[in-house]
């Protein structure tokens, strides 16, 4: 049965199910409980993560399985890698993906490569949960979307859900997966609600979801930008333009077939990604289609991304940083060579 719960509740639910099912699943991270060894603190008063996403897990699974860590990203993320290689199935939280600079080695050179370097004789069933995304007025060091860095690295899997239901199903799959998965959570989506099935269900990695079917143009959108695409599509529908919105959901593996099939049908592609453009995921998808989908293309491949700047603090600037439905509509108008569209909706 599906009920409407928030994105963060969906994640909490997935963690609860995974931990109940397999005692090798442990959680670790900074303040994933909070208040370690504070005498007077009741478990239900503990933070449960800096934004409360892991709240309540300690009551069910105890502090032996929900581990607060020191501020030592290399230390505890690397420990999660070592624990995964020796028999646990850790879910480690890197609070903000921006902190990857403190522990990239553990993921890039250890987790991602152990199996290959050891000739297939190691497994690293590790999930890294991490927050990304702009729009929280958190400035340059707490607002990036860095999944491109991980997608570039063979040996890692990369997941970016856009809805509560996807978040739950993909997180359960990620935890059960026997390879290292980096799971991105947009902090500005946490309070967004959606229908989410009860119980344990899995969404396979590498399977895109067509969030809206359409004939005239394909938009591939990453994470929260799926909603930007859908909003633009609704408006465009009033102009008789029928947009297909594809949500890859996992960036590595990437569901090339669904993307190519969509473009084969619509002959036009826009990719929306709030991350920066250079060597980004939007470029990656554009390059895929410029090769394997070239013959079906009737127009240039457009990308709507964050600009080549850090994320600014000031709300007025940050709002300009992010893609918007209006920008999407303008790009569609450009692509279809029909300026009346943009004019009509503005």
């Amino acid at each position, binding site marked *: 049965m599906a009920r409407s719960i928030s994105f963060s509740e969906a994640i909490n639910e997935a963690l609860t199910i995974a931990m109940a099912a397999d005692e090798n699943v442990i959680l670790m991270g900074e303040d994933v409980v909070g208040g*370690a060894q504070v005498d007077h603190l009741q478990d239900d008063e*503990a933070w449960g993560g800096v934004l409360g996403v892991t709240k309540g897990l300690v009551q069910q699974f105890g502090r032996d399985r929900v581990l607060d860590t020191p*501020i030592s990203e290399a230390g505890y993320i690397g420990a999660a890698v070592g624990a995964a290689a020796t028999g646990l199935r850790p879910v480690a939280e890197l609070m903000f993906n921006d902190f990857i600079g403190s522990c990239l080695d553990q993921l890039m050179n250890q987790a991602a490569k152990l199996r290959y370097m050891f000739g297939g004789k190691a497994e690293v069933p590790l999930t890294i949960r991490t927050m990304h995304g702009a729009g929280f007025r958190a400035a340059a060091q707490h607002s990036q979307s860095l999944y491109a860095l991980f997608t570039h690295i063979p040996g890692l899997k990369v997941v970016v859900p856009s809805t509560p239901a996807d978040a739950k199903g993909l997180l359960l799959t990620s935890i059960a997966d026997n390879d290292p998965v980096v799971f991105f959570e947009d902090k500005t989506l946490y309070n967004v609600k959606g229908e989410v099935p009860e119980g344990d269900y899995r969404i396979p990695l590498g399977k895109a979801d067509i969030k809206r079917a359409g004939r005239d143009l394909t938009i591939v959108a990453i994470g929260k930008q799926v909603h930007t695409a859908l909003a633009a599509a609704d408006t465009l529908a009033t102009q008789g333009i029928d947009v297909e919105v594809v949500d890859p959901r996992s960036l590595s593996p990437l569901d090339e077939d669904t993307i190519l099939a969509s473009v084969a049908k619509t002959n036009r592609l826009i990719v929306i990604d709030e991350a920066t453009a250079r060597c980004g995921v939007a470029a990656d998808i554009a390059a895929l289609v410029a090769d394997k989908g070239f013959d079906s293309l009737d127009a240039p491949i457009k990308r709507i991304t964050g*600009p*080549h*700047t850090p994320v600014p603090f000031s709300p007025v600037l940050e709002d300009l940083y992010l893609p918007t439905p209006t920008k999407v509509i303008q790009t569609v108008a450009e692509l279809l060579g029909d300026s009346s569209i943009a004019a009509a909706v503005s």
Partner: protein
Amino acid sequence: MGMVQTAQPVLTHEKALWMYRKMVEIRRFEDAVHDLFAKGKLPGFVHLYAGEEAVAVGVCAHLSEADSITSTHRGHGHCIAKGCDLDGMMAEIYGKATGLCKGKGGSMHIADLTKGMLGANGIVGGGFPLACGAALTAKRKGTNQVAVCFFGDGANNQGTFHEGLNLAAIWKLPVIFVAENNGYAEATPFTYASSCRRIADRAAAYDIPGVVVDGKDVVAVYQAAEEAVRRARSGEGPTLIECITYRNYGHFEGDAQTYKAKEERKRHLEELDAIVRFRSYLLDGGLASGEDLSRLEEEARAAVEQAIQFAEESPFPSPTDLFDDVYVSY
């Protein structure tokens, strides 16, 4: 012990007044930011320094604008103690074009290099290497500038702590590492996350002096910093000073602080308050009159008021500012 010692003239009248003024300025500023945040006037993450004033002020009392400091996510106090303009600071926190960083940095990145303030930093532990770098510049250029690295008890478990202290030690860099041990990193107690009894104990691992002081006694901080700065300026290398302190507010605005014991909070906010204690010290020692201090308090209040007005009335950045200042040239 127990004997009356000839009172050392620790502070001059001017220095004492400057210190009191700065401490009060920080407190007023942070209390104001707290209120503004509660009213929904301020965007973003805000971490307040109230309660820890004695640390920034006791240390910065020895620095000139030519000296550098690196700061943390909890940076307002360091900025003020290092002489940053309140108007520019408040405007920055509002995200206004007149902010010290044109509104692009916000609370977590306020900086003013002309004052030797190398920036608040959103990365815990980010300041250790940067401070070493500033000190390397000073050493290489043969100035007698120093660099101060402020950091929290949580940051003391970052790898950069180890790498920074070792580098400073082997190169005898003029750095003062100032631990602000307020007992918590977010909701995690120092005693849980750190295997050392005292952060200062870790100095031995680098063969440098490690000192613990009551970080809510500004005179004690002042004295410890005096020796550390002297060492640094005279080429004797780094010092680690641990200041035991407390933050009056939560980790960030919005934190219910359930992890703090009630009595602990009460004791810190009432009995142990650094400003109250310094006030008595000044009055008791005849270093300042009640009128002096009231005047300073009033000045600080007015300055903060003025800063808020400045920030409120300032314009937001213009759209093209988004693209500027990424590179010097590209």
